[in-house]
Structures are given as C-alpha cells and as structure tokens.
C-alpha cells in the first residue's frame, strides 16, 4: 500500500499536536535528527545522520536525580518527564541498533527506567535507503538497506509517495492516521522490489569472527592493530550501539544533580581503579575490548553482534581506522597457542 507524500505530510503535521516529532534535517554539520513542527522541514534526500538517533532514548547528558543538602539533611528528587515521540526517517541500521540497545538497558536483573520510559513512549517510522554509501556494510550482519526490523512503521520512498508497511501494533495505531492508502502500480511495485533486493556494496564476512575471537584474547594481532588510533572516541560517540556511560555530580553550593553522560571504552580513565590499578591501561587492551565486546562478548551474552554496519565510525575516524578491515584482519589472523 502507498500514501502520497502530500497526504502523508498532512497526517504528519497533524501529529505535531500530540507528539514530539524527531526527523532528519539539514544543519551546519550535515544531517541531524531534530525536533520538527512540519513535514516541510524534513530532509527527504539524505544518506544518514552524522550522529545516531540513539540520543533520543539515551541522551548524551541526562539528569538522573537532583538533591538538596541542608545541614546534615538531604532531600533527593527524581523526576522524568517524557513526551510521546515519533521518530521519523530512521534508517534500518539505526532501527536495528535500538533493538540491540534494548538488550543492554534491560538485562537479566535490571531495567533502566530512563531509557525505557522514552523507548516505550516512542514510535519509530523507518525509511528504506534508496542510496547506499560506500561505508555502508549492514548486509554483513544479515540486515539490509530496506530492512524493517526495529521499525514500527516502515516506508519506502517512491518519489511522490511512500510504500507503507505496518510492522508492529504500536505502528498500527499510528498508521490509522494515514488516510487514503492506495494500491501500488506495477511500476511502483517493481521499484519497491528493487529497493528491497538491494544489498550494500561493501560486505565483510563475520560468519566465523565470533568463534575466531574466542581464541584470540592473547593474539599478537592486537599489538599493532591500534597503533595509529589517537583515542578520540569518535567511533563510540557516533555508534548506534555503543552504550557506555559515566555517572557524575554537578554541584552548586548545597544543591546538586547526578547526571549520566556518554563515556567510551577507548578512554584511558574508563577503567581506572581508585588504587591506581587499571586493568585496561593501554590502547591495545582498549581496542581489544571494543572489538571483543561488539563481536564476541555481546554475541555470547545476547545472541547478536553489537554492530549494524552503519559505517559512521569509518566516516568519522580521523586516522582512517576501518572496522571492516579490523574484522577482516581478525578473521585472517594466525592463531597462536593461548
């Protein structure tokens, strides 16, 4: 089924009264997901945003609670106000990334209320990628540029209209607002099929990576791999599946706020003990952690790799580290006796 962009735009604009709407827009830094008030603000022709949309569930800087000290007494306050939100224009890699984050923020013992309060109150409208960047490699992970996994409603841009697929119950409720759905013409159906069949040009073989890494903790492969890395963390901050954070206090006189902020395993202080001991005190250990976490530990714990092939870390790296080559290198590395 399809809907004309004109009709879709009207339905979209009508949602503004009830929802915070986040969509891709053009800004000074390229494409960013931001709040919009009208469909006319939405960038239609884009590859993907510079930063992943994870920040809408897991903000870069977030207040967990606040407190006030008076003499020896303290009052603690926590409030979380979350608006109903529609995220429009989420690419398949990022939609999948959010499913992977779900596995982190809810584990066998705990559920993160800040993350899930936002997640539960949001609807994701995914849009297929008509164009594929050379750094895209989602097909490596069984995903595809037109994969609907992780979206509540999934659209394919057909020029003047969207092909509409309702994926979840949540999506169904929202899709009820789109009137005037009509059948696709034969030409449009052919276009939809073509987009659905597309794969990324770049693909890395990950079929044996996890089991190979099982035997590679002490492999000399890690010794040289990281030499040119400058530890800037852009890979983590632009990653749709990286989730590490710090918790710290912001204090003014007798009032304070406890905040959490994005952190990254590539930061030397990340694991520094109070005693001065640091189990990952060198870049080699930190790079190994990054790769092991995404392609080995996460698989053992959650049954999936923690990478969706969005390519942001490749685009963003100032020294041209390429995670595809790192995986490939691990695949080909010679095993040593551990």
């Amino acid at each position, binding site marked *: 089924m399809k809907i004309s962009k004109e009709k879709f735009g009207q339905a979209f604009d009508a949602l503004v009264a009830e929802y915070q709407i986040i969509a891709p827009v053009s800004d000074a830094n390229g494409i960013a997901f931001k709040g919009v008030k009208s469909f006319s603000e939405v960038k239609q022709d884009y590859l993907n945003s510079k930063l992943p949309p994870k920040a809408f569930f897991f903000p870069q800087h977030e207040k*967990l*609670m606040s*407190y006030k*000290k008076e003499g*020896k*007494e*303290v009052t*603690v306050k*926590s409030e979380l106000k979350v608006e109903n939100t529609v995220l429009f224009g989420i690419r398949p890699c990022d939609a999948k990334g959010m499913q992977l984050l779900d596995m*982190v*923020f809810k*584990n*066998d*013992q*705990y559920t*993160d*209320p*800040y993350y899930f309060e936002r997640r539960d109150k949001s609807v994701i409208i995914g849009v297929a990628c008509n164009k594929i960047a050379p750094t895209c490699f989602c097909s490596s992970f069984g995903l595809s540029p037109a994969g609907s996994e992780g979206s509540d409603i999934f659209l394919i841009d057909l020029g003047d209209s969207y092909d509409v697929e309702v994926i979840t119950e949540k999506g169904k409720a929202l899709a009820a607002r789109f009137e005037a759905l009509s059948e696709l013409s034969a030409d449009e159906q052919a276009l939809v099929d073509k987009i659905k069949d597309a794969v990324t040009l770049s693909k890395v073989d990950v079929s044996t990576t996890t089991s190979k890494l099982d035997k590679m*903790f002490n492999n000399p492969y890690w010794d040289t791999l990281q030499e040119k890395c400058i530890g800037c963390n852009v890979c983590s901050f632009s990653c749709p599946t990286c*989730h*590490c*954070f*710090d*918790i*710290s*206090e912001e*204090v003014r006189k*007798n009032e*304070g706020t*406890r905040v*959490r902020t994005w*952190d990254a*395993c590539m930061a030397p202080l*990340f*694991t*520094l*003990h*109070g*005693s001065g*001991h640091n*189990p*990952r005190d060198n870049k080699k*250990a930190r790079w190994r*952690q990054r790769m*092991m*976490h995404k392609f*080995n*530990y996460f698989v*053992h*714990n959650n049954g999936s790799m923690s990478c969706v092939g969005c390519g942001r870390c490749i685009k963003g790296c100032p020294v041209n580290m390429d995670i595809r080559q790192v995986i490939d290198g691990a695949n080909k590395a010679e095993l040593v006796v551990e």
Partner: protein
Amino acid sequence: MQLNPYIPITMKLVKNLVETEDKLINTFTLEFLNQQDEENFKYMPGQFAELSAYGHGEAPFGIATSPTEPGILKFSVAKVGCVSNALHLMEEGTMVGVRGPMGNYYPLEKFKGKNVVIIGGGFAFTTLRSLAKYMLDDKHRGDYGDITVIYGARNPGLLLYKEELAEWENNPNINLITTIDRPAEGWTKHVGFIPSITEQIAPSSVDTYAVVCGPPAMIKFTLPVLEKLNFTPESIYTSLEMRMKCGLGICGRCNIGTEYVCKDGPVFSMAQLKELPNEY
C-alpha cells in the same frame, strides 16, 4: 531493590570510626531510617552497595556487616579518591545515599555441611568479616563445619575490626589465625606473609571451601599453596574489585570478558576465573 535502581535510599551516618592506625581506613556505620528501606535491602555476605556522599559522587564498597546484624550497614573504606575522602571527613549524623544491595554473594548454600577457610589480607577483609559473622550466627553456625580464618596485615595497627578479632580469639566456634608481615613489639601471634602462614597452618582441603580476598600479590602466591593442599579451582572463591558506575551491568566498564563484575560477580570461583580473560 527499588523501582528505579539509580535512586539511592537515604541512610544516616551514625558512626565514623578511624579503623587503622595509619588513619587511611574508616568504618562507617549507617542506620536505616525506616523499616521499609531495611526490608527492601535484603542482602547476603559478599554483596556491595553504591555509597553516595552528596555533593561529591558515589562509589561501590563491599558490605562489611552481616544480614544477621539488623538496623545498620557497615562499610570499611580506604581514603583514595573524591568520594572516600568526603566520607572520611563526614560528620556523624549526616545523611548519605545507598544503592543496593548489588552483585552476587558467597555461595553459602554450597558451604553448608562443609568446612570453610577464609583467607584475607589487608583491608580486603570487609566482606570476609560479613561472611564469618554470618556463619557464626547462632541460627547458622550448625550449618557449617570448621570455620578457619587466616587474616594478615602489614602490622598490627592495620588489622581491621580489632575488638572483634579479640573476641574470635576466645570463641571455640572459630579458629582465628592472625599474622603480620614483620615482627612488631607486643605482637605474640604469627609473623609472615599470608601464603607462607597458610602453608604452615595447612588447612585440610577435604570437604572444605576456601575464600580468598586480598591484594593481587597475596592472591597470586596463596593460590599455589591452596593447590598444593589439594584445593580444586571449584572449591576456591574470591571477590573482585573493578571500577564501577551503575552497578547494574549497563554502563559497560567493569566487564572481564563476558562477565560484568557488578552484576555477575563480584564473587567468582577460581574455576570461573580460569575461563575468563586475564584482564583484572
């Protein structure tokens, strides 16, 4: 645990005691403000909690009390950073935040009907104290065989819980061996490092579990001794420390391989640790 695991309960610092003669370790006694908080804070020996010094931050510390001591929690904390300094300087009566209990605990079910050898060095004795105290409780003592505690510090002034140790000396329910690294005036008990004293005492490994906590060097040299005494990796437990923030297995910094020390640990058997990468 509360609904929002990031929000601490408020507890009152009722005692801020300088524990060691170098004045680097204080023991904080915290009092629950109400019964509801205490009921929600059901813990076992080996678990830890995140303490908040409001205005400074929070940090994880092992719980030194045993659940058999109602109404309070105790933490013995070395002064090393921002939060621990603030706690050391805190006036009694001040309110602090506590999140927890967190992590797993010593496998007391497995210990039932067995002898237990507790080996501790320096100020890593906190959750070991909890463990011994728990097993010594009238309600639990019958569940366990012989309880042996081998505890050492650099010098007598650095031993934690001195009054309690004196009590245990005369308690027939527990076999306490204390040692210091070098001879000191007035010290009449063992002198020597933990590994060699353990070798000398030679606790039997038959039907026995060992729990070892201490500085890495102590553990490194004690394990071969236990091996020689025929303790298997499955019968030796330890508790690990890591830098932590959330304590919930989410913030991503305390993992050793696939295991998050905060949520899957901090208590591990040597058999478990052998399966994990050597990154701690």
